[in-house]
Every structure is written in structure tokens, then in C-alpha cells.
């Protein structure tokens, strides 16, 4: 826009184009989106200034609602208002030991569970995609344009199925994904870069539904994860549930309706949060049957009923230290991440275990998103002052194959630094065997049945040989997202089979393709709306600038030129409130063209004024 290019002589015009890079913390309870602005990671708030987005999606009669809007409806419409969807990612119904806690109508589909909602059967991937789409839109509004690259965080202890599900959700939400990043590692980046720390650090991350512990060594700009452990079904939700059970027991309540159950869970959570600041919290509720609940929960009772949950987090901590071959005293600092670490009993337990008070100088709700934004900014190629750092992460769970007798053979042990590729040779066990079934599993247990099944495939076309003569090399490759590819090859003949390990969600390829094309249709609508909004902003700016310029430097415009500008302005105003962004764009261009020479004359005048010592501040917008 010519009129806006007037700047102080000697001052550079617009800075070079930066990539719009975002970091997303897709949490069980809350989600956030952050970006790096002027070299500093910042969380992007909504219009009302709220940084968090409650991770809640409602399939309402008028369409999809997310965040606070969905939260407001959770007790009134519990079966269509999905909370804690992260707990269901990559999980079958049989995996959800706490399924009966939720008021949803679960559908037992192979691979991953689905939810029956007003909008039809929804997989956790689709629900998460709706959340991610809301975060993407928030970022695009704030960054004034489409996102170029995103880093989405996952619990370090997520297995391959849960990671793949998260990546699929991001893809479905139209996010160009740069990397999946482990949550504690993201927190370490945010912390480490802030404090320029060196030494061994522990990141204790107790979120809404997941627990992670990571042990990292920071040295000269390298973040090296030494070991990670956790529990992908343990978090603040479980503390809420303990309070909920306590209420039912003490108030001697009969079996509850889904709405009442959700109401009491919300009250339980509020009580938990109050107890971080106060000695007691009251729980007041009126149930649908008219029965009222009026209880007081003390800090002492709360600590007692949640004692074994806190103790449960220390087991993975011990295991991670053992894997890193370190003692608690080797740890220089402990970083707390996740809203659930605000509970005083959690802080106390961590302080006792490590023999030092934990670090809490960054907001535990925001630190993961901030670290993800820093990583996204770097991966997108935006240069910053302190970007000479490197991240070396690990896989949380061993990867292996099923061998004879239903046993697992580990190919890549847990806590291996990624990316990693490793091959192992197997052979046939029968004379003339021409095919080999390959079953890929993840977990620490000896028996295949106790591990998570990731994929099955077959290597066919092995030439008939005596048993034990074939040389079948199976290669596992884990990329920097922690996602696995497996290839099998008979070495003498070169017969090959490869699989990208995609857990079966019960979604056929056709369904995935349809979901993607649906989302593109929506995306097309979204893009129309965005293009129009952007054109309107441009139109308003150029109209205002033109009027100002005419008022101050109208003497520089000839009569014919003035008429052309007026026509262009009128046309612009006509299209301003229409819905055709292309027509509006054309009108902006036309006005730009009509004012081009005028702008050049203004520029000359402002330069000569500057040279004669007069200020041009009042002239340039």
C-alpha cells in the first residue's frame, strides 16, 4: 500500500517476512497456544484476555462449541460435552479402566474407542481435532494469517499409538505440523533458556490426566534427555475423582444421573483448587432430585484421601533415576509443570524426595506451550539471538517383536535417544517356510499379551529353504517425533516388506480420507471468511489513510486525479460490507493505483520537509 510506505528517511521499511510458528500444549484439562514475538515466547490469549482454553468440546444442537462455551454446557448436556478426551487418544474401550467414570456413550470399536454424540460417532482424534482447530483459529486471528508451522506437545510417556493419534488430529485440524514434542522437554526448553542452566534437572509434570518425569542434562546449549518415565493415566482428574467419591460416601448419595455426576465432579475440582490456597473448602450443590449437598473438605482429609496418588507418582521418578543411573542428590533442580503441581501435598512430596524445594518461577500451566513455541520458531527457521541449542530426546517405552511362544524380543530399549534405527536378524523355523508374520509391540513386559500391539504385517515370497537358512533382517526406525517405521527384508533374495506403524483406529483409510476432505471443505469456508476479514481490514486502512492524506496534502492532487480517487473510494465502500472478498480486494487495488502518484508526491514533500528540518510525524500514519 503506497500511502503507508512513508517512513522517516533512512529508516528501513517493513521487516523481512517471519514464519508464523506456534506451539500448542494440548492438555487433558486445558490447552494453550503460544508463539515467539520479538524474541520472547508468549501465550496467545482470547479476546477476553484468557490464556487457557478448557479442553472441552460440545456437539450442540447449533454445531460444535469448544473451550469456555462448551464448559458452560457440561452439566446440562454431559453426554455431548466431551472432557478429558486426551485420556482416550489411541486407546480401545478395554484400555479405559476408568471408562465408567465418564458419562459418555462409548462405542467399542477396534483399535480406538468412539463416542456416540449428537453429531454422530466421534473418535477421540476427531474431538481433539476440533480443539486444535479452535487453537489454530485463535493463533491465525492473532498472527493475522495462516500458521506456517506448529509444534504440538504430547506426554513423554505416550506410546506410539497415542502419538500417532495426536499427529492425525493435528493433520485433521489443518495444522502444518513440524514436530511432536514431549511435554517435560518443552518445559525444560522454556526453563533452561530462561535461566541459562547447566547440570542435571528433573521435570515433574503432573497434568490433568497424565504424569511424566524426565531427567535431563543441560550443557552448553544441549538438552539431553537421559531418561523418562510416567503414567499416561494419572493426573489431576484422579484427585478430583477421589474428592467426588468422598462426597458420595460422606453424603450417602444414591447412584447419580450423568448431569449430577458431572456437577459433583466440577464441584470436587473447585474444592481441590481452593485447597491450594485455603485450609478448608466447602462443597455446595443441589442435585436434580432436589437433594442438597453441603460438605466441608479440609486440607488434612484431602491430603489423606489422595496420599496414594501422590505416592504413585514417585515410582516412575525412582525408575527414571535408575535408568539414568543417578541418585536424587545428583539432581541440581526440579521443575514443576502442570496445574496439578499447585497442590501443596504434591510440592511437599517432591521436595522431600529430592531434598530441595522445586523451581516454580514459570507458570506451570504455560511453561509447556512456551517451550513448544520456542521449538516451533526454531524449526520454522526464524532466527533468534539464542537459538544455538539442540534437543536430544528419547523414546519412553521399548519397541520389539513377537517371537515364538508369545514372547517379546526388544529391538530398541526404552530411553534410547531418537532418532534411532536398529536392525535384528531372524530366521524361519519350518522347512520351506515362505512367509513370516511380523508383530510389532511396545512395552516392557516379557509376554506379548502384556504389551501394546502396534502393528502386524507379513513378509511374503521368501524362497523355500530349510528351517533356519533364511536371513530376515527386521529394521526399526524411530524418527524425531518418536514415531516408528518397520521394514523386513530377506537378505539373500532381497524380498522386502515395509510398514509405517499406524495403529488401527477402527477408521478405514476411506473414513480417514473422508474426514480429511470434510475438514478441507470446512477449511475452504474458513479461508473464505478469513480472506474477507483480511480484505476488510486492508480496505478500512487504505480508505482512512487516503482521507487523511487528502485532508493534509489535497493541494498536491489535480482535479481529474481527485475524481478518479473519489470513484475508487466509492467503489471500495460499496464492496466493504459485501461478502465477495475478491471484489473488495480488486477495489483496494484500484484505490491503490489511483493514489499511487499522489503518494509519490507526498513522499517527495515529506522528504523535502525533513531536509528543511520540519517534522513529518503528523503526516505519516
Amino acid at each position, binding site marked *: 500500500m503506497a500511502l503507508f510506505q512513508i517512513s522517516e528517511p533512512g529508516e528501513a521499511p517493513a521487516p523481512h517476512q517471519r514464519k508464523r510458528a506456534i506451539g500448542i500444549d494440548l492438555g487433558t484439562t486445558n490447552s494453550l497456544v503460544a508463539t515467539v514475538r520479538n524474541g520472547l515466547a508468549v501465550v496467545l490469549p482470547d479476546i477476553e484476555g484468557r490464556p487457557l482454553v478448557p479442553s472441552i468440546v460440545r456437539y450442540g444442537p447449533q454445531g460444535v462449541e469448544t473451550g469456555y462455551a462448551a464448559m458452560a454446557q457440561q452439566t446440562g448436556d454431559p453426554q455431548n460435552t466431551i472432557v478429558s478426551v486426551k485420556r482416550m487418544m489411541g486407546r480401545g474401550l478395554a484400555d479405559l479402566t476408568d471408562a465408567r467414570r465418564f458419562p459418555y456413550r462409548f462405542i467399542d470399536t477396534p483399535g480406538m474407542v468412539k463416542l456416540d454424540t449428537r453429531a454422530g460417532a466421534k473418535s477421540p482424534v476427531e474431538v481433539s481435532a476440533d480443539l486444535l482447530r479452535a487453537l489454530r483459529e485463535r493463533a491465525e486471528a492473532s498472527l493475522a494469517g495462516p500458521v506456517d508451522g506448529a509444534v504440538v506437545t504430547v506426554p513423554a510417556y505416550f506410546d506410539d499409538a497415542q502419538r500417532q493419534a495426536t499427529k492425525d488430529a493435528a493433520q485433521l485440524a489443518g495444522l502444518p505440523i513440524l514436530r511432536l514434542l514431549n511435554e517435560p522437554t518443552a518445559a525444560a526448553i522454556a526453563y533452561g533458556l530462561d535461566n541459562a542452566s547447566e547440570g542435571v534437572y528433573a521435570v515433574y509434570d503432573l497434568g490433568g490426566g497424565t504424569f511424566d518425569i524426565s531427567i535431563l542434562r543441560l550443557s552448553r546449549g544441549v538438552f539431553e534427555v537421559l531418561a523418562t518415565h510416567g503414567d499416561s493415566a494419572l493426573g489431576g482428574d484422579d484427585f478430583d475423582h477421589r474428592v467426588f467419591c468422598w462426597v458420595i460416601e460422606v453424603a450417602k448419595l444414591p447412584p447419580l444421573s450423568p448431569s449430577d455426576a458431572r456437577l459433583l465432579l466440577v464441584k470436587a475440582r473447585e474444592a481441590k483448587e481452593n485447597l491450594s490456597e485455603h485450609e478448608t473448602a466447602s462443597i455446595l450443590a443441589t442435585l436434580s432430585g432436589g437433594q442438597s449437598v453441603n460438605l466441608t473438605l479440609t486440607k488434612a482429609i484431602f491430603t489423606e484421601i489422595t496420599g496414594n496418588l501422590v505416592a504413585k507418582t514417585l515410582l516412575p521418578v525412582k525408575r527414571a533415576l535408575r535408568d539414568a543411573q543417578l541418585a536424587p542428590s545428583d539432581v541440581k533442580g526440579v521443575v514443576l509443570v502442570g496445574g496439578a503441581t499447585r497442590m501443596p501435598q504434591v510440592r511437599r512430596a517432591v521436595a522431600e524426595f529430592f531434598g530441595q524445594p522445586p523451581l516454580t518461577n514459570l507458570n506451570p500451566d504455560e511453561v509447556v506451550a512456551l517451550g513448544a513455541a520456542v521449538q516451533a520458531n526454531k524449526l*520454522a527457521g526464524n532466527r533468534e539471538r539464542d537459538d544455538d541449542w539442540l534437543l*536430544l530426546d528419547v523414546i519412553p517405552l521399548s519397541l520389539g517383536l513377537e517371537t515364538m511362544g508369545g514372547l517379546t524380543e526388544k529391538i530398541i530399549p526404552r530411553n534410547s*535417544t531418537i*532418532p534411532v*534405527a536398529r536392525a535384528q536378524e531372524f530366521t524361519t523355523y519350518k522347512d520351506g517356510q515362505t512367509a513370516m508374520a511380523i508383530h510389532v509391540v511396545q512395552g516392557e513386559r516379557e509376554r506379548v499379551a502384556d504389551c501394546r500391539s502396534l502393528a502386524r504385517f507379513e513378509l511374503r515370497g521368501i524362497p523355500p529353504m530349510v528351517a533356519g537358512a533364511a536371513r530376515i533382517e527386521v529394521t526399526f526406525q524411530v*524418527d524425531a517425533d518418536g514415531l516408528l517405521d518397520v521394514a523386513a527384508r530377506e537378505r539373500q533374495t532381497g524380498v522386502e516388506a515395509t510398514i509405517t506403524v499406524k495403529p488401527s483406529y477402527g477408521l478405514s483409510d476411506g473414513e480417514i480420507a473422508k474426514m480429511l476432505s470434510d475438514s478441507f471443505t470446512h477449511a475452504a469456508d474458513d479461508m473464505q471468511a478469513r480472506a474477507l476479514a483480511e480484505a476488510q481490514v486492508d480496505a478500512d486502512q487504505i480508505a482512512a489513510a487516503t482521507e487523511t492524506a487528502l485532508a493534509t496534502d489535497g493541494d498536491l492532487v489535480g482535479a481529474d486525479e481527485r475524481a478518479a480517487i473519489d470513484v475508487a473510494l466509492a467503489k471500495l465502500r460499496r464492496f466493504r460490507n459485501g461478502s465477495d472478498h475478491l471484489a473488495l480486494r480488486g477495489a483496494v487495488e484500484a484505490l491503490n493505483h489511483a493514489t499511487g502518484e499522489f503518494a509519490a508526491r507526498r513522499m517527495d514533500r515529506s522528504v523535502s520537509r525533513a531536509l528543511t528540518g520540519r517534522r513529518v510525524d503528523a503526516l505519516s500514519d
Partner: protein
Amino acid sequence: MIDFSRNYFDLFGMVPAFRFDGAMLDQAYRQLQAEVHPDRFAGASDAQRRHALQSSARVNEAYRALKDPVRRAQYLLRLHDIDAVGETDTALPLDFLERQMERREQAADAQAAGDTEALSALLAEARAEGRAMEDVLARMLDREQAFAVARTQVRELTFLAKLAEDIDAMLAAIES
């Protein structure tokens, strides 16, 4: 990008040896990863990203092979075409085997009794014997260059490391 034909020591600019400067390896490893890691190529072409993935995985594998003394000894022998890990010729000196069998039995008893002190003592013993073996290997591999002869000691060291690892797992199981 890295040359996949180079041996692991060469990759890190180090002279093949059993005893060497671990801090130097750490430094060389980080420096190399900083150059080849996929994070450096997030916006590059598919081919470049694939190459970065393979290079970075290779550097991780090399680091793992050299960082740990047992694997380092095995790798040194492999550079001299001696297989210390294969299933063929698994013979070990009888007195060594007897000593380890006895330890395994003691460990199993201690595990059954939940006796973490006894397990910790056995673990310390196995590790001490392993360290003594490393001193022997340093002489044989670095000074005498007696790679073929050292195969037995490398196998013993491997055996001891596996024993220590198993006892450690028993301890972890009791503590959890």
C-alpha cells in the same frame, strides 16, 4: 552430512582405543548431532530430511556403541573381525561360570526374600569385578593389541554386565 563407511571412532575424530576420554566423546557427539540432527532440516526437502534422520540415527548408534565399555570392547573386536557377541563358541572358563552361577542363585534367593541389601551387595560385587576386567582389557586391547586373545575377557565382561543389569532389575521390581 556424514560418511556412513567410516568407523565409529573415526566418525567422532577419535583414535580406536578401549581407554579414552569420555568427555571428549560427549563433546564430539553433541557437535556432530548439532550438524546432522533432523531439527536442522525441518524445512528441507524430503530427501534431505530422510538423510538427516539416517545420519542422526547413525551418530546415536555410534555414541551408544562407544559410550559403554562393554559395547566399546565388543566394537573394537569387531573392527578386527572378531565376533564377541555371536551365538557360536560360547565357551567361558569353568571357574568364572561357577562363580557367576553362584551369584545368580544368591540373587534369586535374595529376590524371593525381598532382601534388597543382599541384592545391592551382589550388584556392587558384580560391578567391581567388571571394573577389574576393564583394567585387564585396557592392557590387552590398548597396550598388547591382543584382540583375538581378549575375546574371552570381553565375553566375561559382557556376562558380568548382564548379571549386574538383571540384579538391578530385581532391585527395581522390589522397590516398586
